[in-house]
């Protein structure tokens, strides 16, 4: 009899532990209140979770500003690697949870699913439309765009001087520069083609120059996002031209096994003369090669001109519609939407420009070579106009990897992207 009771008690205890584990704790979600007692005053701090795919270093000044200016708010930064960021956040949002302030993933689908708070009334008039257009759906604003990003081609100034090389203005000139560098045992351009995103952006740089950046190309780009135009019809000539990088031996098959970090090592050690990237790597360059002189020229095309930078509005921060600490989260977003907030964000992301009205930043000297493209307004990230078909960009990058590996033709690569875009658009329209 005793045994039966013992077993019963153990079972009940086990079950209670099990269900306690499954239950939702009132303190383990986004809102936690903690009492902080500085000397004699009691300040109740509200925890606001902010997620983003860049490491904490890229927002450290901003986080310090929140700490200094918002004594009643404790902003907890959650870094989630870019490779899994969307999956992690979307899974949390689907479960009715997730961080309070979310960087990125604001698109037609996530807005339609009701994941984000409408920010129109409070912030729309404060930001330029050029920045908010990508996070505005049905005339409602769902995110606050931060300093713009761009990528061009960084080059080692000393190596260019040593071999008497001029900054190329066209793709042909670029290949002439590459030939000289190769003859001297220098890799022309380091690139981590293992990452499909890097492979895709390399092609976008050329495609912007040769087609997407033209009036006809811009129209095509918008139509592609609506599903009324195909990539294979418009971008095949540009992708054929891009294969010149392979024919000239600038990009090689072995680069498909190279991580971006390893490509950076090649660039900063002087083994490679050029590297396509943006301001987010400037600190890394300076840490690894403090004495290296760096400048940047824009992405090139076949016809010349000022060139194009691949880029657009930076991360947009949205407010989780299910957040339990909206008041505190609004305080954070309010501070972010001030010149002080913008400057704090920019301090660790120098190079871009702010979309908050009345805020301007000075461009660092490292981007002098790209000024002409900036002045011409040649900064564009075509994927921003693809809407829900934007996820097909990964397929473009993977297709370009297959092109380099020799397992697909440009036509097959673009056809596969069209197929994926159609699938994504059909899902969204049903």
């Amino acid at each position, binding site marked *: 009899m005793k*045994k*039966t009771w013992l*077993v*019963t008690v*153990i*079972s009940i205890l*086990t*079950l209670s532990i*099990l269900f306690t584990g*499954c239950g939702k704790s009132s303190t383990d979600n986004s809102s936690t209140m903690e009492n902080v007692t500085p000397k004699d005053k009691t300040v109740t701090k509200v925890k606001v979770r902010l997620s983003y795919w860049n490491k904490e270093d890229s927002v450290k000044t901003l986080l310090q500003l929140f700490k200094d200016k918002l004594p009643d708010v404790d902003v907890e930064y959650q870094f989630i690697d870019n*490779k899994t960021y*969307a*999956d992690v956040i*979307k*899974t949390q949002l*689907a479960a009715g949870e997730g961080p309070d302030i979310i960087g990125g993933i604001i698109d037609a*689908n*996530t807005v*339609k*699913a009701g994941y984000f708070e409408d920010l129109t009334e409070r912030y729309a008039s404060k930001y330029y439309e050029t920045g908010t257009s990508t996070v505005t759906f049905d005339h409602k604003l769902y995110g606050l765009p931060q300093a713009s990003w761009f990528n061009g081609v960084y080059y080692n100034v000393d190596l260019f001087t040593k071999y008497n090389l001029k900054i190329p203005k066209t793709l042909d000139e670029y290949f002439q520069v590459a030939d000289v560098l190769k003859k001297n045992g220098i890799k022309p351009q380091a690139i981590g*083609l*293992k*990452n*499909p995103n890097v492979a895709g952006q390399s092609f976008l740089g050329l495609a912007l120059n040769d087609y997407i950046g033209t009036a006809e190309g811009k129209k095509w780009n918008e139509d592609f996002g609506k599903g009324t135009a195909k990539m294979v019809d418009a971008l095949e000539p540009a992708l054929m031209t891009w294969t010149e990088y392979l024919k000239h031996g600038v990009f090689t*098959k*072995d*680069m*498909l*096994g*190279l*991580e971006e970090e*390893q*490509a950076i*090592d*090649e660039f900063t050690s002087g*083994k490679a003369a050029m590297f396509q990237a943006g301001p987010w790597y400037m600190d890394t360059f300076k840490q690894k090669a403090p004495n290296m002189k760096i400048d940047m020229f824009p992405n090139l095309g076949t016809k010349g001109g000022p060139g194009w930078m691949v880029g657009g509005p930076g991360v947009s921060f949205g407010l989780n519609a299910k957040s339990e600490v909206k008041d505190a989260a609004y305080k954070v977003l309010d501070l972010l939407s001030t010149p002080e907030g913008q400057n704090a964000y920019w301090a660790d992301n120098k190079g871009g420009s702010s979309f908050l009205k009345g805020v301007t930043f000075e461009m660092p000297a490292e981007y002098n070579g790209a000024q002409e493209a900036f002045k011409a307004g040649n900064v564009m990230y075509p994927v921003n106009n693809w809407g829900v078909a934007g*996820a097909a960009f*990964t397929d473009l990058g*993977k*297709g370009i*990897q*297959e092109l*380099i*590996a020799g*397992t*697909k033709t440009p036509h097959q690569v673009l056809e596969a992207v069209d197929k994926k875009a159609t699938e*994504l658009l059909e*899902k*969204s329209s*049903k």
Partner: protein
Amino acid sequence: MNKPNMFKREINYVLLLLPALLIYCTFFIIPTLKTALYSFTNWSDVHPVVVKFVGLDNYIALFKESIYLTGIRNTLIYAVLAMLGQNILAIPLAVFLNKKLKTKNLLRAAFFLPAVFSVLVIGYLWNFMYSPSDFGLINQLVVALGFERINFLGDPHFALYSVIIASVWQWVGYTMVIYLANLQSISTDYYEAAKIDRASGMQMFRYITLPLLLPAITFNTVMGMINGMKVFDIVYALTGGGPGYSTETIVSLMLKKGLSEGFYSYGAAFGIVFVILVGIITFIHISLIKMWERR
């Protein structure tokens, strides 16, 4: 024993099993049933609440796309080769480290050590070892020996096998420990008798060690196969499924389609196909092992 007494005795066991059964139902049976249910709907990130029944559409679409067949093929190649590699290396290693060596504990620890680390850490490490750049350790050796660089992770024909080598390196020590435990339970009498009969070392291994290692072989090969079928992390860390789609596996594609692209029901259908596939392969595998046991 009369019926009430039998019930009293049985209820003890039932109550003891209940928590485990509840955990099993909560975390496996119910999610699997729900996954099966969702696989017949149009559930997606666009339709998170109102879902419609679409019959077998998701399953039909699955077998129409070559990328999913590539994923299934890669998974099978990975599972079979990684399982074979681990076991073929682990058995002689365990036999060797079961001998009276002064350094045997140190060597056992050294071989087991990689299994302690996270797969992502191992992936990061091998990424640098495999790198085609001048900083890649293996390629430095290859070039120093006068050969051409090997594009371990960037060549679609090599990439999957490079991943398998890294995985075998990590898990061979773990597999070895299980064989060691089994070896220590084999009585030395058999070997002494064999020595009297003048059996060679190879004959002792073939006719004594190997048959008596069967319990460990069964466990290691079945678990190796199942873990191989579930592979995701090492592929993710080393190649991300690339170049192109050349190293995508069932789980990586399930994650890509089911989560990243928001086709939840499609991912669910792939999940169900995966469960069935693992079930069939495990059944065949265990049947073969049983046939061997009977011989």
